[in-house]
């Protein structure tokens, strides 16, 4: 997980830099990509924990994590 987070942090910094220095369309695309990463990273981390806990028999907390992801999904559908 630490290696995944390190790689994602570097990607966020690179995309943020491109968003600031690149031409309008490319810059905006890089900015959108940066925001998508910032949203996806914590949710992937939660999903990883849910799968890990479920497979190890810690189902109560796996369900709690699953509920958090469900709330996020509800937020997406209500706002789009």
């Amino acid at each position, binding site marked *: 997980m630490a290696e995944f987070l*390190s790689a994602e942090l570097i990607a966020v910094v690179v995309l943020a830099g491109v968003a600031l220095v690149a031409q309008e369309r490319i810059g905006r695309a890089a900015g959108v990509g940066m925001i998508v990463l*910032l949203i996806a990273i914590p949710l992937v981390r939660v999903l990883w924990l849910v799968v890990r806990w479920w497979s190890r028999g810690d189902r109560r907390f796996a369900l709690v994590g699953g509920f958090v992801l469900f709330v*996020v999904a509800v*937020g997406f559908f209500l706002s789009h």
Partner: protein
Amino acid sequence: MMDTYYLIPLGALTAFIGVIGGVGGATLLVPTLVAFGLSPLEAAPLGLISVAGTSLAASLRQLDDGLVHHRLGLTIEAPAAIGAVFGALISTSLPAVWLARVLGFGALAGAIATLARRGVRNPPKSTFVDDSPGEWPGTLGGTYHHGGQSVPYLAKRLPAGLTVSLIAGTISGMAGVGGGFLKTPAMSEVMKVPVKVAAATSTFTMGITAATGLIVFSGQGRLAPVSGAAVVLGALGGALIGARVQSRLPASRAKTITGGLLALIAVVVLVQTT
């Protein structure tokens, strides 16, 4: 809209001070942007982008230290995520002056929480010396290392902690601040979790709350990607330097500086709304 490049030093400065004082950068950034004339509806997404960036940066170090209690984090995040969705959804229906007041009172609560915060509560126990730091599977307890010894802990008063977390999430979704100024004291003072574990776990949960709020903001068309990039670059730099300075600065002075600044910004924002 404020010039994008001014957001880099502003993001850096607020993250620097926020990390030193342990409240996170957005608690300072968003009220400052509003005090400078940005609408609360525009400032909130920038605040959550800053929160998401600094949460990611901080999580690397905290994972290595074994301080994050993921089970406790996701347990208190469940009501926070509900609050974040609710807060973000209703924020567009509320008058800007109400949002600014929520922000002002949030900053005031942050100032009080910062100035009133206490140090390490749980004593080390020699019977736990050989335990590796981390969480105990299937429970809201664990151990962490302090002064060469292991400190055991078990979260208490869960309903009270969940209630505070719901309030923190709602403020986060409405105003774009991280909510750590409520979550961390709730875990350490109400749930009796060690301060360091509470702070690290709070940082982990703030990334999820920010992602939840940003998803709703994206559906509302409120995200400004290039301005967000400027805030992230500034916030990451400021948080990095702030973390280094924090280890050298006496805790009491850091608390006084951050608490004082938060109180000042709270007064400025609240005066603007009268």
